């Protein structure tokens, strides 16, 4: 917000007049005098006491002077004098070093949070952001861009910019801004793509805080794009078995030769969609057809893999329908339902085994699943048979009950008829 010079002078005069009075109050309350003035200034100089009270540093007892210097106990403008050690506004290029002066010092940090890491600054210096900052690029992210300033919250706080739920949005403030990123010649669609991914759904929709966000793959303080050779290592942090199977598969060597970046070749990077059985085989959505052509060995294997997966899925579905029908009829099939989960586990295992790109391991999992689903199907059919038996039993019982009721009715009539005749 622009201010005219006359308004600025007027505001400064007011401040000079009010500082001694308000400062007197502050002394009485032993508060940080900086916020007395900065609380009523316009942005970017404004820092209200309410805002600063939310800051983790404030909560740990640090005052403005810890970063900006000066003497917060003084009530006059000399509080911001050079003799009082006032550093004023911190230049962007100096921010990492200033934060690191405490956060890289294990002795300092031990007093406040002994479990907090102290390698942020050294990591930052290895990051693209840190390297470019040293080269004089002040547009790159420094600590305060991500963590905020004056109301900085710990990462565990859901309102923090660096909470896992908010990190993608925080990164996108720069990385999704095409104008801001123009000179770096890197894409700006990562955030949009990530928004469509299964990872974002897991994190933001299902609230699974272990699901990956930007920093999970790129690092946080040491943020850098992973190279082609390391992508697989990054995914394997979570997808351990898939990575192990892939590394032993024939694809590993072929991908290395073609300099293809492992996992993301099929699954993409930021826009990792929920994989399905349709992605295996020779269908329209199959990843395999990106490289394999109809009739080659890989294509034949892919087709069989797909058929195996489809067979078990259909078998589970059929079994589930029979059990649901029995259950809706009031039959107790919870044991079979529980057992059917084992078949689902086998299907999940087979889907993981697909990353070996060999029929043997997949078929073994599929056969295990098929045996279980056959047993549960039998249990479901037996339950439906039992239901029919009960209904037939009911029908016979009702016939007997109705016949008895009718017999009793006739008996009453006969008794009363005889009684009436006797009375007559």
């Amino acid at each position, binding site marked *: 917000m622009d201010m005219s010079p006359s308004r600025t002078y007027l505001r400064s005069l007011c401040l000079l007049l009010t500082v001694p009075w308000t400062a007197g109050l502050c002394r009485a309350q032993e508060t940080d005098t900086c916020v007395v003035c900065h609380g009523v200034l316009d942005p970017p100089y404004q820092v209200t006491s309410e805002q600063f009270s939310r800051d983790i540093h404030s909560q740990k007892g640090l005052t403005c002077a810890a970063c900006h210097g000066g003497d917060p106990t003084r009530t006059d403008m000399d509080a911001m004098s050079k003799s009082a050690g006032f550093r004023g506004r911190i230049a962007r290029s100096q921010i990492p070093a200033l934060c690191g002066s405490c956060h890289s010092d294990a002795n300092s940090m031990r007093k406040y949070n002994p479990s907090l890491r102290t390698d942020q600054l050294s990591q930052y210096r290895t990051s693209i952001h840190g390297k470019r900052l040293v080269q004089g690029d002040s547009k790159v992210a420094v600590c305060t861009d991500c963590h905020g300033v004056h109301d900085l919250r710990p990462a565990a706080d859901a309102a923090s910019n660096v909470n896992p739920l908010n990190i993608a949005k925080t990164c996108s403030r720069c990385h999704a801004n095409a104008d801001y990123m123009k000179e770096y010649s890197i894409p700006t669609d990562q955030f949009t793509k990530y928004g469509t991914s299964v990872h974002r759904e897991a994190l933001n929709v299902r609230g699974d805080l272990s699901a990956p966000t930007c920093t999970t793959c790129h690092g946080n303080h040491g943020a850098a794009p992973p190279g082609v050779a390391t992508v697989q290592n990054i995914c394997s942090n979570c997808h351990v078995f898939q990575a192990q199977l892939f590394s032993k598969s024939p694809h590993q060597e072929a991908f290395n030769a073609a300099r293809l970046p492992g996992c993301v070749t099929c699954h993409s990077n930021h826009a990792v969609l929920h994989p399905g059985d349709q992605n295996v085989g020779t269908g329209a959505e199959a990843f395999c057809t990106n490289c394999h052509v109809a009739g080659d060995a890989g294509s034949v294997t892919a087709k069989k893999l797909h058929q195996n997966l489809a067979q078990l899925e259909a078998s589970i579905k059929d079994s589930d329908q029979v059990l649901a029908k029995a259950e809706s009829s*009031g039959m107790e099939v*919870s044991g079979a339902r529980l057992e059917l989960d084992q078949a689902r586990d086998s299907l999940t295992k087979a889907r993981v085994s697909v990353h070996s790109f060999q029929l043997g391991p997949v078929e073994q999992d599929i056969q295990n699943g098929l045996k279980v689903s056959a047993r549960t199907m039998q249990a479901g059919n037996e339950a439906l048979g039992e239901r029919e038996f009960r209904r037939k039993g009911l029908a016979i019982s009702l016939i007997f009950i109705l016949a008895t009721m009718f017999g009793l009715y006739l*008996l009453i009539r006969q*008794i009363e008829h005889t009684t009436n005749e006797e009375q007559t």
Partner: protein
Amino acid sequence: MPDVKLIAHIRGWVDERFGLQELAGSLKKKTVPHHKLSYWYFFGGITLFLFGIQVCTGILLLLYYRPSAGEAFESVQYIMTRVQFGWLIRSIHSWAANLMILMVFLHMFSVLFLRAYRKPRELTWISGMILLLLALGFGFSGYLLPWNTLAFFATKVGTEIAGQVPVAGHRMMVFLRGGEDVTGATLTRFFGFHVAVLPGLTTLLILLHLALVQKLGISVPPSVETQWKQNPRIARQMKFFPNFFLREAIAWYLALGVLAAMAAIYPWGLGTKADPFSPAPAGIKPEWYFMFMFQTLKFIPSKVIFIDGEVLGILLFGLAGGIWVLLPFIDNGVRRFGRRIVVGAGVFAVCYIVALTIHGYVAK
């Protein structure tokens, strides 16, 4: 024939000791009023029949049921899936419980609207009221026994409400739960109430209730009584045995048919095993016969003047229950308006219970 002689000998032996001939003689002589409203009196007999069903099926369930938090659910599951006709016994026990409470309510309201509680049958009414409370106690304690999720949380809510009773509420809650929380101790305690305390008390009360009915006879509705007084020739009596008994038997067979159909077509579900550490599932509702009370407590604001809403609700229900028990004395004591007060209270109670029960199931 020697067999006939043997039977006659045994009968004579038993009769010599128990006086069965005398009892049979009085039964043969016993008559009941016969009029167009006689059928309303069958509900009491049906309730008795269903209580008998409950006793028989309950004893059969006891052969396999295990009253502990670790085994209760599994034992009921075993009864439902492995025990020969276990599903039938358990489903009939559950359906008969609900049908019995419905019959108790119908019996109570038919007695109320036919004014069968009039002098000298006040004690029959009061013993019936206590039997109603015992039936509700059976329902509440039996509901927990399968130890499934719904039952666990419904019991938690139910005992919490009991804990709101002024003065003795907390102690009562701790007594019911066997501690501060609903645990395995609560299950064991409820099992004790369900299979020992309540059946014992109920049997005694039923005997008293029947003795009073036997002693005072079945009431004749006032409208019929007036007609009979005006024209004694149209007054009709029916022999209790076999005429009334056979009619009652038809009603019992009807109840048996309904029970069999419900058990075969809608076997009583088991749900999932209770997990005390899991959050309460959404939409916890009590059994239908507690629904109107539950809904009332939901409608009362949390604070009414200075009284806690739940406490106020409990006090109001306590007051209403007290007045309900005293209705025969109000009818007999208040000369001009007594009858109107009772009928008005009855109509209001029916409308209130039906409306709030429906609302409880329909409203989200």
